[in-house]
């Protein structure tokens, strides 16, 4: 069984609206938001979301260092097989948070991580696509969410299996 941790913002976690940016860092050890949408695909790869961590986008942006450190430490402690940050759709702040956290986790823990966002976040994608895996996702309300969730799970499995699969994962990414 592959163990996954997901990292969400206030909207995806269902903890608030786009105005509740100051949501404090927290977590649930049951699937919430997109983790529930992913359930059929998780079954396909024999995986389980063991925890969902969340943080308001403004909470993160105001003190990136502390939030990032806490998230990395928690990930290290819970030690899942893979961390999924996103899907961030075209929410710019959340996309930035996803990319940066994915990068930090890859650098400071031994757990692999992937991000997901839509092509609208061009600057962030350009900056990070060679350092981390960013799975393509549609913008909010656009066509293709279902296949993104499926791709995220496939990429997560490839990462968790730890084989030399960079080429295979890249097909889902920017």
């Amino acid at each position, binding site marked *: 069984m592959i163990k996954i941790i997901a990292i969400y913002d206030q*909207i995806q976690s*269902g903890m*608030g609206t786009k105005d509740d940016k100051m949501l404090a860092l*927290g977590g649930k050890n049951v699937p919430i938001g*997109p983790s529930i*949408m992913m359930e059929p695909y998780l079954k396909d790869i024999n995986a389980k979301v063991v925890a969902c961590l969340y943080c308001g986008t403004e909470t993160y942006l105001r003190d990136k260092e502390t939030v990032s450190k806490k998230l990395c430490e928690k990930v290290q402690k819970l030690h899942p097989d893979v961390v999924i940050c996103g899907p961030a759709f075209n929410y710019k702040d959340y996309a930035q948070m996803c990319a940066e956290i994915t990068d930090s986790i890859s650098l400071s823990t031994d757990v692999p991580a992937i991000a997901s966002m839509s092509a609208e976040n061009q600057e962030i994608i350009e900056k990070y696509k060679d350092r981390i895996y960013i799975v393509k996702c549609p913008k909010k309300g656009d*066509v293709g*969410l279902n296949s993104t969730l499926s791709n995220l799970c496939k990429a997560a499995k490839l990462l968790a299996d730890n084989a030399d699969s960079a080429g295979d994962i890249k097909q889902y990414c920017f």
Partner: protein
Amino acid sequence: MKKSFMDKLESKLMPVAQYISKNKYLISIRDGFLISMPLLVVGSIFMLISNFPIQPWIDFLRNTNIGGASIASYFSNVTDATFSIMSIFVVVGIGYNYAKQEKTNMIFGSAVALLSWFLLMPFSTSFIPEGATEAITVPSIPLEWVGSKGIFLGILCAFLSVKIYKFVEDKGWTIKMPSGVPPTVGQSFAALFPITGVIIVFFIIRLIFSFTPWGNAFEFIYKILQVPLQSVGDSLGTMLGVYLFAHILWFFGIHGTNITDSVFRPILYALSAENLRALEVGQPLPHIINTQFQDLFATFGGAGSTLSLLIAMFFFCRSKRIKELGKISIVPGIFNINEPIIFGLPIVLNPIIAIPFILTPMVNILISWITMNIGLVPICNGVIMPWTTPPIISGFLSSGWQGALLQVFLIALGVVIYYPFIKTIDKQYLKDEAEVEADGNDEDVSLDDLTF
């Protein structure tokens, strides 16, 4: 719902959704109408004040004169400057947005759209003066055509004129000014030939129509296209079909009403405008289905009529997660915003909640239509309100106390429809929560215990 069935449904619907959401024309129509929306809302507020459903108030406005005209007539000036000329705003808006899509000059896009439309318009009004037997024709811009009746030809003119403009521009048939000439001056010279191209084409079109039995393009498009489309739009079956499609799209995470709006909204607007005109002159309202019917009676709290779901979550669910989500979402829900539960519960790709999510709007539409059809509830008066207007208030302003009461009834009925489904999820969550607690863990993961 089986996964294979969902995959099949998705593979059938996605190409349609993709086509609509990427289609330049439909995007331009949708965004063009959005420009006219605030103007119509403000115009509506004035209309609403002068027609507020209290008879002494209406009499007071009609019988009190200021400067030789009744107060009511001053209010109707605002309606004249917004609703009565709504097609002008729409043509400008669509011309602008289509030019944006075609990557050409947007303000000239608006200008040629308006120009071509006016070029086809008969600039005269016939009327019979008091005591006379024969009609006389006076030169004027006819209010008849700049209102909702001219809207469909306006859409066609906006597309064709911008297309011609872009074609001439792309051919390079433009006057190029030497460098050093200010860009705005250069732009206005560059537009000369493209505008000439537009005028020549529409000049010929006007000429051709003068030989037809319709006499002009407005009459032709109104009778051949707009009236049939309006009667298709003003039917229960169409409204149900449109919302069924929109809500299935929502289930797959696609903004369904955004997609259906680009096709359906122009028709609804035209229907609303006819109702409003009837209201103004005190005639019975002709169309049950219109913008307000869709915005104010089909769903409450956003797509899927999720206000009912939130009430069920808030009052009848016991698991911590659902209660918390209900608490967070109920205030935005009253204003018809349901983003937190669409993704947070989630509704997207959640087969259990999909059933009531699709069913509730269908029931709302059906019951509203029936009650309006048999005269139990007045037909929506055409006053456009922002879609964030909370239910009960919106129902009252649009269909009187009966409208408000109908909304209350439908919201309550929605709670009954959602109840068994959300209870199923609630039970599952309660079980999960109990298991977690039995393991001696709290469901919340604390990140405060971490030290650096």
